[in-house]
Each structure stands twice: as C-alpha cells, then as structure tokens.
C-alpha cells in the first residue's frame, strides 16, 4: 500500500464491519450467535467497531448445551456485563425437558447435534430473520463453499445447490417470512488470522485456550476433558496432562491438545507449526467425509 498503511488484518476487519452493518441495514430482527469461543468473541469486537458509540442492533444469543466449560460461561457473563448488551440463552436442557430432543446414549453420546433443534426453536421463538455466526471457510470443505449471506429455508436447511450468487461486495438478504439468513462476517479469515487479530486488539479470551493442567481421558485417539458429561466407564483411565483447547464447543465433543502455550505469542507459533487443522480436534466432523455438509443441510450453524 502506497500512502497509507492498510494491511491484511485491516482489510479483513473492514470487510467484516461492512458485513455487520449490512445486517443492521437489511434485517428487522437479527441476532449474533455467541458461543464463548474465540471466533464469536472476535465478532463481538468487530460489532463494537461497527456500531459504537451506539448499541448493537442485535442481541447476543447463546445456544447452551448445558455441557459447557465453566470458564466459558464465566467469561460470557463478564463480557456481557462489560459491553452492556442483551444476552438470550437457548437451552438444550429445556429442549430435552420439553421432549423435543432425546439425549443420546452410549460412549460417544454428545449434545452437539441436539443444538440444532434448540437453535431452530430459539430462532422461531424470537422470530430472528438473521443469525450472525463466526464460521470460517478455512475450517472445513463444505464451509469453503458457503456464502457470506447463507439463506436457510423455514426448516433451517442449507441447500448447497441452490445458493444465491454473491457478487462484488453486494449481499442479497431478501427472504420470505419464515426463512432466515446465516451470516458469516469472518468467512475469509483463517485460524491464524483470528489469532493475529486477537493479539493485535489485545482481546481477552477464556482461560481454557491457554495451557493448563487438566484431568483427561483418551477417546478415539484424542484427549477429552474428564467430566460428568462424558459417559465414562472402567476402561477409561483418567490422567493429568498439560493441555489447551483450540476450539470451544460442548465438553463432550471438544478435544484438548497437549500444549505448553501460555501466551498468545506461544499459541501463534504453535499454530504456525502445527500439522493438525483446528477441526481435527472436533469429533463431530470425523463421522464421514461429508459430516459438516450433512449437518448444515439439517440446520446446523
């Protein structure tokens, strides 16, 4: 860049802010899906840059599986207090109590897939017409093909063959009643971009992203945090390890990685050198080659 300094993080940031403001301008009742993970935390910072000193034109929505890391919930509550915005919680436990979903059984039981129903019910209850999410195209091959404005039918389904062309920086958010649009402002960011941005902006994160000692067991070749939410039996041997988490999801499906990284700089060097992709630590993607595509078609984030 010649006369002013506008580097790749500035460009990604400006694009994301533009997308968030399009959401504000085009929709009646948008929401920002907040998981407590680094990507949605990044979205909150971008929303501050898009709308301050005004209020956010949307509430934060947390789809709570009830199987969270306590650190994430503490972080969420402190952050909501700091930014002074509204938080709506959609509870998977409520969906189970209401008989809308049935808890999985067996060793690999997880509430991850149950979230979809709670998400769709929450969207219907509050009549959200747009849901902003922190998904990125570098995460997974089905996501690599998804639009920034991704239209879902009234059943929440994504139809990869009927996606609207998305041209230049023009986003078509027009929908019929009952449909909604999932919006991904950081589609063009990579995992490393997110970390570099968090470092640059000095954004605070939940402590589980950094190296700590934790009781774990081995499940399908991966380290899982020992917790009452895992169906453990006598074959599972609990041991203590120095670990951290690369993504923050439900405790029953998010694997830890061995790590000594205590600072963001350590994490960035670790990721730069890493040979395992971020979603490699997610059991939910390992079911089949098209696992994510199938879940998205069913209404997943």
């Amino acid at each position, binding site marked *: *860049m*010649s*006369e*002013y300094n*506008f*580097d*790749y993080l*500035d*460009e*990604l*940031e*400006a*694009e994301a*802010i*533009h997308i968030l*403001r*399009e959401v*504000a*301008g085009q929709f009646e009742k948008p929401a920002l899906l907040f998981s407590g993970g680094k990507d949605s935390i990044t979205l909150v910072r971008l929303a501050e*840059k*898009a*709308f*301050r*000193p*005004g*209020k956010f*034109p949307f509430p934060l929505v947390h789809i709570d599986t009830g199987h969270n890391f306590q650190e994430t919930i503490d972080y969420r509550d402190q952050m909501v207090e700091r930014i002074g915005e509204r938080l709506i919680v959609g509870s998977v436990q409520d969906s189970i109590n209401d008989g809308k979903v049935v808890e999985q059984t067996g060793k690999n039981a997880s509430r991850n897939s149950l979230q979809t129903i709670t998400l769709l019910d929450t969207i219907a209850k509050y009549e959200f017409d747009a849901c902003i999410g922190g998904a990125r*195209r*570098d995460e997974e*091959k*089905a996501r*690599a*093909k998804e639009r920034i404005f991704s239209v879902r039918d009234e059943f929440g389904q994504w139809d*990869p*063959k009927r*996606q*609207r*062309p*998305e*041209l*230049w*920086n*023009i986003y*078509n958010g*027009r*929908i*019929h009643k009952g449909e909604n649009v999932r919006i991904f402002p950081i*589609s*063009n960011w*990579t995992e*490393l*971009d997110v970390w570099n941005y968090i470092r640059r902006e000095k954004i605070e994160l939940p402590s589980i992203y950094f190296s700590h000692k934790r009781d774990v067991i081995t499940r399908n070749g991966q380290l899982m945090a020992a917790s009452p939410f895992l169906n453990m039996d006598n074959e599972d041997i609990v041991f203590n390890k120095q670990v951290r988490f690369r993504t923050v999801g439900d405790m029953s499906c998010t694997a830890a990685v061995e790590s000594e990284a205590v600072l963001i700089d350590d994490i960035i060097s670790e990721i730069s050198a*890493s*040979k*395992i*992709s971020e979603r*490699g630590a997610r059991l939910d993607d390992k079911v089949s*080659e*098209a696992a994510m*595509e199938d879940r998205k078609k069913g209404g997943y984030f």
Partner: protein
Amino acid sequence: MNILKFFTAGSVDDGKSTLIGRLLYDTDSILADQLEALQSSNRKNDDGSIDLAILTDGLRAEREQGITIDVAYKYFQTEKRKFIIADTPGHIQYTRNMVTGASTANLAIILVDARNGVVEQTIRHSYLVSLLGIKHVVVCINKMDMVNYSEDVYSSIINKYKDLAKQLKLADVNYIPVSALKGDNIVQNSVNMDWYKGESLLHFLEKVDTDNLDKSQLARMPVQWVIRPQTDELHDYRGYAGRVLSGTFKVNDNVTIIPSGATSTIKRIEFFDQFPDAAHAGQSVTIHLNGDVDISRGDTIVNASALTQDTKLIEADLCWMDGRALDTSITYLIQHNSKTTKCKVSEILHKVDINTLEKHDADEFKLNDIGRVIIKTADTLAFDLYDDNRANGSAILVDSRTNLTVGALMFRAAM
C-alpha cells in the same frame, strides 16, 4: 503484508483443481489430518500418487462426479502475502458461478492445456475476465510434461493468445509454462524448462502489484447505517457508517449527498477509538458532517468535485443467473451497494456468443446468457461506469417473487 484475491478459470480437464492443490501442497498449506483424509480417499492418480484435485471439491456431488459445481474459496499464505483463491467451475453451464468468483478477484489465472492450445473455453474464460474488468491475467500453459516441455509448443500458444488479449483489451497479461501435476514452475522453477527465464507462478503472485491499476480516485461512501446513540451525553451524535468504496475523504472536504444533492463538509472521521484525518478506499469508518443534512441508508456521500452519473437510464452488461428467463415486462429490484430500488430491463441491445465473441440480436435472456441491455431505475443511483470505478459500477438484479439474485450488472454508459 496484504491480500491478493485471484480466481482460476479452467476445467478439471485442464488440471485446474490440481494446480490449486499443488499451490496449497507445495506451500505447506495442507495440514496432516486433511492429508490423511486425502490419502485414505479412493481417488488416486494413474501412478498411485495423491489426487490433489480432491482438495478443492467440497460438496458430495462434486466428489461423486469429479467436477467443480460451485465456487470454493481457499486460503494460503506465504511470508509475503495472504492469498484468497476463488476456485470456479469451467464448464459453460456454470458460467454464473465463474462470474461470481471473478467479481471479487484482482487477478485471473487462465489455464490452457498445452496439448490443445487456445480453444473455445479459453476464449470464453478470457472474455469473462475482460467483462468483469480484471486487469491482471496469468495464462498458465499447463501439462507441459505431456508435450516434452517443448518451447515451440509454448511459443505458438502464447502468440495465439496475444491476439485474443489484444481483441479483449486485457491490460496486463503474463505467461508461464507449468505442469501442475509434476510441480514445474508452480512454486519452484522447473528444471525441465531451462528456456523459460521468468518466475514461477507463486513468485509472480507474491510480487504482482495490483494497486496501481485497480484503484479509482473518485471518493465514494455509501451510507449503510446511521449511528444515533440517543443517550443524554450523546444527544446530538449522528454518525454515518459505511465503507469507503474508492478514493479518499479528508476532514474539511466538500461533499455532496446523492441522490438529494445536499452539500456539506466533513467535520470528523471516526473509527472506533480513533479520529483519523482521512478515510481511504477499503476502510469501514463513521463520517460526521457539518450542519443539518438529511441522510439515511442508501444515500451515498461523494466528493463534491467529482459527482456520480446522474440518470435513471443506464446501459449495462448483464449476466443472467436464474433458471427463469429475463422478463422485460416485469419490475425487478436493483441492488447497488446499500441502495435498493425498482427497475426494468427496458431493452435488450444484443447478446454475446461467449464462445466466439459474436454479437447477436436477441429477444430472450436465459441462464448464463450475457449481453448489453438498457436498465431503467425508479430512483437515481449514485453510480460510476464500471471501467472507471469497478466498486461503484456494478449492481445485482433481484427477482422480488423469489428473492433470488438473478442478474449481475456492469454499468457501461449513462444515457
């Protein structure tokens, strides 16, 4: 470090997916678990090596049919740049997907099979590159390994392509002989082609300067959102939030609001916790103006010394993107940056046969058709011509019955 967005035109038969796979593979952008999934896949090259093309096929149907249907975005980075690849399908029935992928790119890679040379598809892809105003082109003559790395074959292909580039007025065309399958001249310079003195594809992509040709000086900012906190301490706060499309705005600049024609001066530029003196193309900022001006979403702030076109009749190139044909009797919506208004396609001037570049009279406009039309808009749009300002010279057509994006428009003349 900055970002280069490029798109690749070509079909699987030309080795397009293999080329992208090779770029990712040779820059260490494929991670171990992805590689493992790749190795365990059933698709292999004839010699048993990994089929790198699988890396870019995202959807189940694409893997089953071995073709690319939709645009896939891929990311990699070197020490010099971050790269965003729009991997687009090459077949004629997916022209609209290629137009989509090309719309955000600064550079196009056109793949030519060394065995076949410049063919109908090459003409079509090059036409789309010129239509979408992509100024930088790299023609990769691929599969050089299949023609014994022959310099003569390479030279005769580029001579032929030069005629095409001249006809299409492509501004900056570069040629590289490669073999994506074997890795020649993709990341490393090839040992099989001593006669080629240029750079490898990756080195070229790392250093190509896309600033000088792509930037318009016309200062434009469509207003997306008006920030009004309406609190006691910020009672009179009115900030116009938007992304500067092109040019530069400075504090104290005289500006005009389109379409109202109201004028003002810039009081302050705000970006979160900063108050810069200027806002440049690409930046998302908040602008404060002096005096009372009535501005809402859909209005555009422009520099008073360079106004936008002032007409409701626009001559434009149209690429039709819907299964339902264009109907010149109905009203569509036109979305131009943050502004949406009604419009009609009042006349079809001609259609282009994109395989031969011949123009034809036409009564109908169907999926993937491209041609020149006249658009009549209900409200005035604050537009520039596409050749002068790509960011402000484009729009989409939306069918209000289905809400689908049915057309891509590039403004060519004000009438």
